[in-house]
């Protein structure tokens, strides 16, 4: 929002009639790009819907509540219950871990660190975003999973009574919790980078006013920086959430996928939409592919809903702190 406002066109209608050829070309190019985007989005939605309808008409199970995924069997049965829960649970774990840490890092870079450190540190965080997800996946499978044993058994021992952290089966911790931590690391740089830019936009006057009123640095951040940055933090989190929901290969490498629905997040098992599509696509038959596309459509819809919710929140907050912008 703040970054886009300077670029917004200011009604320049000095010479409406003798506009040059270049203007026209550029206007049409811009308009064409806009239309193209809509057409592409529409085409994707139409394609997914069409293939989904084909698959759903053959499904002998309930698409929403079935656990199995066997669309190519003589009696096709497939459902998204496990995938939807796994996708949302792992993304929520990632957000719970990543958002506070990312805000901390962003505040450190924008308000605490000396300039000499802040610059290279910010660069390092950005670099984290450029690491390909297969590398995160390999790191997760070869390093993170073997090192999760201690934390897993600690959580099981002291927080096992919460049901969520109750570990009912032994085995390596290739579970949704580990996936959530891996996803948290992957979305951290995105949330950090956007939040950092938003915190930098906080009007200097607000900060100085807070300090002049006797606020400590933490109180200044709480009263001036965070309220101003809240819409930015939310949209940054939504960007991160988008990546967490759609992450494919890192999840496929780390998670021990199974069609078991369980909220014991320390038990190996579960699955996510993107991971399921990646693993099942190669050997899927016609109906299998259509079924996978139906699950892709569900992910598409979930992402749209999440983004829509975020827009709503931001729109409300904007009015609240609109005077600042």
């Amino acid at each position: 929002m703040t970054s886009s406002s300077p670029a917004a066109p200011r009604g320049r209608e000095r010479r409406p009639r003798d506009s040059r050829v270049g203007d026209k070309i550029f206007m049409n190019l811009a308009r064409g790009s806009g239309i193209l985007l809509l057409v592409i989005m529409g085409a994707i939605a139409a394609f997914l819907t069409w293939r989904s309808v084909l698959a759903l008409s053959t499904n002998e199970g309930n698409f929403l509540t079935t656990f199995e995924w066997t669309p190519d069997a003589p009696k096709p049965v497939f459902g998204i219950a496990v995938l939807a829960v796994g996708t949302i649970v792992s993304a929520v774990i990632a957000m719970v871990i990543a958002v506070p840490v990312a805000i901390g890092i962003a505040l450190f870079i924008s308000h605490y660190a000396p300039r000499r450190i802040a610059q290279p540190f910010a660069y390092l965080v950005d670099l984290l975003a450029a690491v390909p997800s297969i590398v995160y996946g390999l790191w997760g499978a070869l390093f993170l999973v073997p090192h999760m044993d201690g934390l897993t058994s600690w959580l099981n021992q002291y927080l096992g009574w919460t049901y969520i952290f109750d570990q009912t089966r032994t085995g390596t911790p290739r579970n949704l919790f580990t996936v959530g931590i891996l996803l948290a690391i992957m979305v951290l740089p995105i949330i950090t980078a956007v939040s950092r830019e938003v915190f930098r936009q906080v009007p200097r006057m607000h900060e100085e006013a807070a300090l002049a009123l006797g606020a400590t640095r933490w109180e200044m951040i709480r009263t001036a920086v965070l309220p101003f940055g809240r819409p930015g933090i939310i949209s940054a989190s939504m960007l991160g959430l988008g990546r967490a929901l759609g992450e494919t290969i890192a999840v496929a490498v780390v998670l021990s996928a199974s069609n078991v629905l369980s909220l014991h997040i320390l038990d190996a098992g579960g699955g996510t939409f993107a991971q399921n599509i990646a693993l099942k696509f190669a050997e899927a038959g016609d109906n299998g592919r259509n079924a996978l596309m139906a699950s892709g459509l569900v992910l598409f819809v979930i992402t749209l809903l999440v983004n829509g919710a975020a827009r709503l929140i931001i729109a409300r907050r904007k009015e609240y702190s609109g005077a600042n912008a």
Partner: protein
Amino acid sequence: MKLQRNGRSKALAIGAMALVSSLSLAACGSDNNSGSTASGGSSGSAAASAINCGKPGSLIAAGSTAQGAAMDVWKTSFNAACSGTTINYQGGGSGAGIQQFNQGKIQFAGSDSALKPAEVDASKAVCTGGQGIDLPMVGGLIALVFNVDGVDNLVLDAPTAAKIFDSQITKWNDPAIAALNPGAKLPDAEIQTFHRSDDSGTTENLTKYFAAAGGGAWSYPAGKAWAGKGGQSANGSAGVSAQVKQVKNSISYVELAYAQTNNLKSAAINTGASKPVAATAENAANTFAKAQIAGTGSDLALKLDYATKEEGSYPLVLVTYEIVCDKGNKAETLDTVKSFLTYTISDAGQKAVGEKGYVPLPKTLTDKVNSTIATLA
């Protein structure tokens, strides 16, 4: 909180790990490469003499990834021997291969399973005057690989293995396992089973074996998707091999090549023969030699006897096919298809992939395939 404290060093740690993992990957890669170039080099001259190039042209084929490594070996030596001819085999899975074959986009398809009746019907549109047929081309065996401290030789039979993979047997010192392994020091530890998380022909063949020889211990239909209870899963043969290597008291199933390259111990199978049968290429070839041909006409689809009790016949085998038209192949590529497939089924061709962890098909079978290839039109 822990994360926050480590936040600063995280990037460094990731960088270092990325480096380490890429190095170790590079190491694996170079191992494989040296193996393939060595085998290519040694069999190069022998292969060249076995190759009859036919008309120059280019072939496009696709399908089963299980035979991908075999195709790599074959097309390298064929392309080297026959300048002007290029063979292009794309993986992508058996289903995709058959689909493209029936759309007439490729000259032959690789498949883990024989054509289904519906697929044969569909192929008649492409093969004018004929239909798609299955030619057994690449043999393989599935090893039951395990990692148990103090146990070097393990014997299992189909019902016991099926129960292990279905979490009905959960301890290594279970009486059923102990009865098959008198004298072995089986630990009082939980069995960690690993299966494939992706759909796979390997899973399909294993579950077919369980269904045929398991004596009712396996209650699920055979299929590419894993249906058993419990255990963990990993992506691809490479993924499950890595897990077995890493996790103590584990067991899984992979093709022979992965057991060999990862130095995993394989269980011998008690089939009812006088001695347990070890998972070796020779023992698997014995099973292929006894296999019946289930296809009609020129179709050579095999019916494997998973419940075999023959001496030295390893029952857990798989065969992948090349699918071509018996009549109505495209005139401009027919000659190249015939010469390429004649090479792949030749002794030299089979021996070359035998060095890559596949099972060379026995002479009785290759002769039949060879004479069928000669009749393609």
